[in-house]
């Protein structure tokens, strides 16, 4: 082989190697996209909440008590619950120790509540023509109070059965307290806002796990006032409360969290029906608000609330505000289901929002169940 041929061969090999270097790669997938907490929320899996053997989303393993209205503050789950379990199944009462272990976790797959045994009229806070809402059958149980479940040692999002954190003691409370919403200051001091027969009350504790002592008088007076939801003000100087009264959501503000000035109803355009399966909105309520910091460093209030429809179903709606006064509503519900209620958001970070909600429990819908969803729905929580 001549020298020139060898050189040409080497050149050809070099060209071929250059071609071989261009081996293909698979397409990339977008990951880590921003999200505005607008949903759609999906229920967490049993692995994500670490409550095994229960349907997706259930965050509280409590087989005996009737529960609803859960929210999480500083890792503690606060919720409304029957203070004692039902004595027996006689006359419609349920035996807490009966049934398979999985019973506690069974959510009602047909939890539309219309016409089934679990349907009870809302016992407070609704206008006379408000639709019947799915709430636990409180009358079937003993007095209810506010229970608290501490975070698990493994740090997962599931909770074990809680213990009473606050019970009714004052006359104005009418024998029961419910709808907890806890705010923890930077120094650890905790304020527990709750609803009772005569209005919205306040109990305070040195820590979120400490003993709550009621302030005595309601901070917001009035019958039919429910579901307080409190966050720090956007200016970091005070507090903002959103609560439900008469099928509307109202606003109040305070500089110290103890003395409140009521600002009146929040204007919220009705959530339009998506199709013929969505009945017309007849009232709103049960607000749950979270103060989130956006990726641009701005503070935004995100309020999730119930849009109650004429047929008794409930859509979880959302509104946002940059000033805490005027709210802009999202045009679609943030949860596909029509049977989840009492949303309580928890902002994990700029992108991930957890939403604690109440629903019916399969087999014993009157007991209720607490579930948790996440947005964006395509992520998997560790």
């Amino acid at each position, binding site marked *: 082989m001549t020298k020139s041929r060898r*050189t040409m061969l080497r050149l050809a090999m070099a060209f071929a190697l250059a071609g071989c270097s*261009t081996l293909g790669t698979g*397409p990339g997938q977008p990951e*880590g*996209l921003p999200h*505005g907490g607008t949903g759609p929320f999906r229920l967490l899996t049993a692995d994500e909440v670490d409550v095994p053997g229960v349907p997706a989303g259930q965050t509280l393993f409590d087989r005996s008590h009737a529960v609803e209205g859960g929210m999480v503050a500083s890792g503690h789950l606060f919720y409304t619950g029957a203070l004692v379990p039902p004595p027996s199944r006689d006359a419609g009462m349920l035996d807490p120790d009966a049934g398979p272990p999985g019973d506690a976790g069974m959510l009602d797959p047909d939890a539309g509540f219309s016409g089934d045994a679990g349907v009870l009229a809302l016992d407070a806070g609704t206008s006379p023509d408000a639709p019947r809402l799915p709430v636990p059958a409180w009358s079937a149980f003993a007095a209810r109070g506010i229970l608290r479940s501490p975070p698990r040692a493994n740090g997962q999002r599931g909770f074990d059965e809680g213990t009473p954190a606050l019970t009714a003691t004052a006359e104005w409370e009418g024998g029961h307290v419910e709808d907890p919403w806890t705010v923890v200051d930077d120094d650890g001091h905790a304020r527990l806002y709750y609803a009772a027969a005569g209005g919205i009350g306040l109990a305070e504790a040195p820590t979120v796990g400490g003993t709550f002592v009621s302030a005595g008088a309601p901070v917001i007076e009035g019958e039919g006032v429910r579901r307080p939801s409190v966050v720090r003000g956007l200016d970091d100087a005070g507090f903002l409360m959103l609560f439900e009264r008469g099928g509307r959501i109202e606003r109040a503000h305070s500089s110290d969290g103890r003395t409140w000035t009521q600002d009146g109803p929040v204007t919220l355009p009705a959530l339009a029906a998506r199709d013929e399966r969505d009945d017309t909105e007849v009232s709103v309520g049960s607000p749950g608000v979270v103060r989130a910091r956006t*990726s641009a460093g701005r503070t935004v209030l995100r309020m999730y609330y119930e849009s109650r429809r004429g047929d008794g179903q409930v859509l979880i709606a959302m509104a946002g505000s940059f000033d805490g006064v005027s709210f802009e509503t999202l045009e679609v519900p943030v949860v596909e289901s029509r049977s989840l209620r009492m949303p309580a958001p928890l902002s994990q970070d700029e992108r991930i929002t957890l939403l604690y909600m109440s629903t019916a429990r399969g087999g014993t819908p009157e007991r209720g169940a607490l579930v948790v969803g996440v947005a964006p729905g395509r992520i998997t929580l560790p």
Partner: protein
Amino acid sequence: MDLRARVLSSSRAAVSACAKTRLAAGLAPVFFAAVFFAAVLLVAFPGRGHAQPMDTYGLGSRAIAMGGAVTADVEDYSANYYNPAGLARGAATRISVGWFGAQPRLQLNGLDSGVDPVDGLTTGLVVPGTIDGFRFAFGIAVHLPDARISRTRSLPRSRPRWELFDNRPQRTFLASHIAIRPFEWLTVGGGIAFLSLSANKLSIRGDIDALVPDRGTRLEHDLNADLTTIRYPQAGIQVDPMPGLSFGLVYRGQFALDSTLQAQVGRPGVDSDTRLHVGDITIPAYFDLLSQSVNAFVPQQLSLGGRWSPTPQFRVNAEVTWVNWSAYVSPIGRSSIILDIAVPPELADTIRVPGTIVGSEPIAANFQDRFVPRVGVEGLASSASNYELLVRGGAFYEHSPVPDQTGLSNLVDTDRLALSAGAGLRLTELRPVLDGWLSFDLHLQWALLPERIARKSSPVDPVGDWRASGHIFGGGLTMEVGFR
């Protein structure tokens, strides 16, 4: 022969003969040039213009190492992109092959956006000749990506996307140009470039058993994907008014890849060949999704550059490019959805079909024009009788043409500052094996995309505020064989 002068002073050689030729040339060169330009313009304007993935990352290691500032100073195969007039500068036949890669590290809110790298084979050639005593050259350049020939993406309109880096560079590029040198001080070039385009249609037909979908469902599907080309022209000139100085001007038109994606299930009407089976009941079904968008719009551009060689061993290039981004067509397209299922009355309470499914409408992009400054330097670091070693550096700055994203769209982009460096080794004494040279050019490039923040006007924006930033790392090697 002084090899340094041969490498670095092609313009000097051209200009040295310039004075002789100016006087000798008559009307023939002018006529030839006029006809040539007319032909280029005829090709150029009926179409929608031109551009290519190289707009983002460049073509050829020498040019990229010099920041792309080579409009007035290019004569290898990369002239097919930077300025086709440069093809006629040299008298040697050149064959080039190389590899180019760019790895974006682009983030939204500190999380990787998953923007795909762009890498692949680049190759090209320059073949000079003479026609009636005028120098003439033909050139061709190809960029063949590793991963795909073409890619079509039709994203939800609010989905954040790195508009200039995500899908646009994922294209095959082929360009062929011709150039002439009617005078020693003037070269003119033009031609056509090709880009790949795809249009897809998916059809599904068959039976779907609503009760036992695993066993009772039989479906067939057809997928038609047309990979077609878009052709667009470009033209440029280079002028050498005096030794050591040259200027270049190149025009690149605009083009757009219209992307159509259609998915059909069944046919409209009761005779649809796709049916839902619910027990003994058969329901004809029809679904049609049509998505139309512009997938890779590249705006028209005009680059004006200069080269100054104070010594034969050193040159400084500078140029500015006007980019007509204000004509940008938004990639957020139009979509329509039709769902037609004739549910029998006995199943009306079980199967609910929405009456109307609202599609989407395009959202205006409202980009702004920009001027891109570029600088590049090249110097001779070392030489001997059989080799030359050149070092290069360059930079450019691109101001983002994308307006603040305060609404529903999320076209992500930031400014870009790119710094590059490179080296070239030319082996010049290869006879008797090769009467020419063999060169290797290497480039490295780093681009900084400083943080940009989007603040949404709506507190319930589905995406919310975001912060975008990143880096792009690039590199490549080009090997060239020159035949004297």
